[in-house]
């Protein structure tokens, strides 16, 4: 088997904010590589720069030092053709129906003909298991449904990479557990790579192939942990000793002396 080149490569990137004496380092020397189809979670305490890292990976802000490449091309601005983003809040446009919201990236990028926008949006809606709410407005849907529509919107252009910034943070535990199952099956079916930012340790372990643990001040990666759980993942794995000991290990990393 020939090793495939990485999809995403970030080499020694740093991000500083402020000027002069106020200047501080938000992210220090971060490197990560992501293979096609890989699922990485990033966990860390609040204020460790997770969201800044995601914004840089999505091309929304630029690193002060270092380069991020996707498919060997430098990311110097938003990459709507290659990267889909799902934010902490669904951020659906309130005057558009579910389907129209999902079509929004297609319209923006004039991606294909208008006549097949609807069919593709419906397909994406089926993928997130909401086939029959296409004509409802966001305010008529529950938080979990809105977030699933945001995921469908992120996936509509078949991005090579899906960035997710604490997408389930605002959901209740039961909805979130269901969403994990949905996300895992979407990942299995679509084959996109996913970078998933969260501050829930169990969520990070349960979903990902690799968990990157970050520390704050300055934001940096302190350990990358491979998760040896078979796929498809089952909810009951969360209660296993293996996951429990991993969780404790990550907690010690975040709360322990190396993180300070």
């Amino acid at each position: 088997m020939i090793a495939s080149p990485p999809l995403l490569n970030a080499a020694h990137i740093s991000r500083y904010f402020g000027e002069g004496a106020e200047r501080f380092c938000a992210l220090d020397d971060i490197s990560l590589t992501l293979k096609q189809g890989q699922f990485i979670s990033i966990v860390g305490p609040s204020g460790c720069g997770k969201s800044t890292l995601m914004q840089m990976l999505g091309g929304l802000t630029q690193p002060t030092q270092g380069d991020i490449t996707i498919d060997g091309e430098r990311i110097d601005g938003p990459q709507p053709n290659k990267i889909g983003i799902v934010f902490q809040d669904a951020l659906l446009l309130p005057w558009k129906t579910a389907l129209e919201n999902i079509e929004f990236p297609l319209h923006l990028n004039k991606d294909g003909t208008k006549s097949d926008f609807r069919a593709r949006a419906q397909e994406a809606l089926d993928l997130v298991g909401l086939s029959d709410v296409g004509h409802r407005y966001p305010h008529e849907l529950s938080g979990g449904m809105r977030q699933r529509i945001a995921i469908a919107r992120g996936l509509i252009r078949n991005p090579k990479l899906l960035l997710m910034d604490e997408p389930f943070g605002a959901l209740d535990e039961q909805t979130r557990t269901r969403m994990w199952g949905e996300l895992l099956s979407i990942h299995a079916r679509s084959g996109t790579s996913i970078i998933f930012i969260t501050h829930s340790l169990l969520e990070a372990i349960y979903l990902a192939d690799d968990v990157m643990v970050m520390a704050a001040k300055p934001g940096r990666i302190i350990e990358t942990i491979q998760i040896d759980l078979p796929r498809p993942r089952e909810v009951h794995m969360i209660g296993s000793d293996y996951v429990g000991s991993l969780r404790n290990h990550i907690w010690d990393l975040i709360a322990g002396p190396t993180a300070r």
Partner: protein
Amino acid sequence: MMKRLIIIASLVLLWQMAAEWGVLNPLIVGTPLMIAQAAKKNGLIFIMALRVTLFEMICACALAWSSGLIIGMICGANKCRTLCVTPLISAMIAVPLVVLYPVIVAWAGIGPISKIIYGAAAGFFPMTLSVINGVNGIDQRYIVMARAMGASRLTILIDIYARFALPSIMSGLRIGTSLLIIAIIQSEMLSATDGLGFWISYYRSLFAVGDVYFGVILVLCIAAFINQILSYAEQRLRFTMI
């Protein structure tokens, strides 16, 4: 609808009766009959005047709406510009613009042009301020979302900013337009050669009460008509906004 017509008809009748019986002085409040006679005698003058006034209003609306919308959007979409422009515009709203009217007449003469400039100025400031406030209050995360999805600056301005600000834009339109109507009639009364305001003022000086009230009714009709159009637009938009 039928009920409303009956109410209006009985009020008109009551008005006429009150004047006939000497309860009200017809020289002050006029009578429906006097108004009807005035309409018959000087109807043509008023129709020509209506055309002039409407022309001035449409031109002033076009100027005030477009400049208010464009300047409001451009200033509102940027924190720094908002901070520079908002105090200026708020201050201008507080200035009684009528003190500038003689200056405008000196620049543009007593023809329709001075009315258009004056009316547009009266509508521009509240319109711009509403647009700035509406655009300014937008949740920036939506802008980040649109940028990540590949939206250009222009698309973001039109599809996101303007769309979110629609309720504010509509309220700005309503306030601005009513001030604009007032300003145009007022300026015609002050110095003009034609227009409803001019003829109302002219017949008042002749003590032709019927003609004065006929002119007033025409102005009310214009205001009501424009108000109707704006309410209709607002309702339609509210339906699509939710």
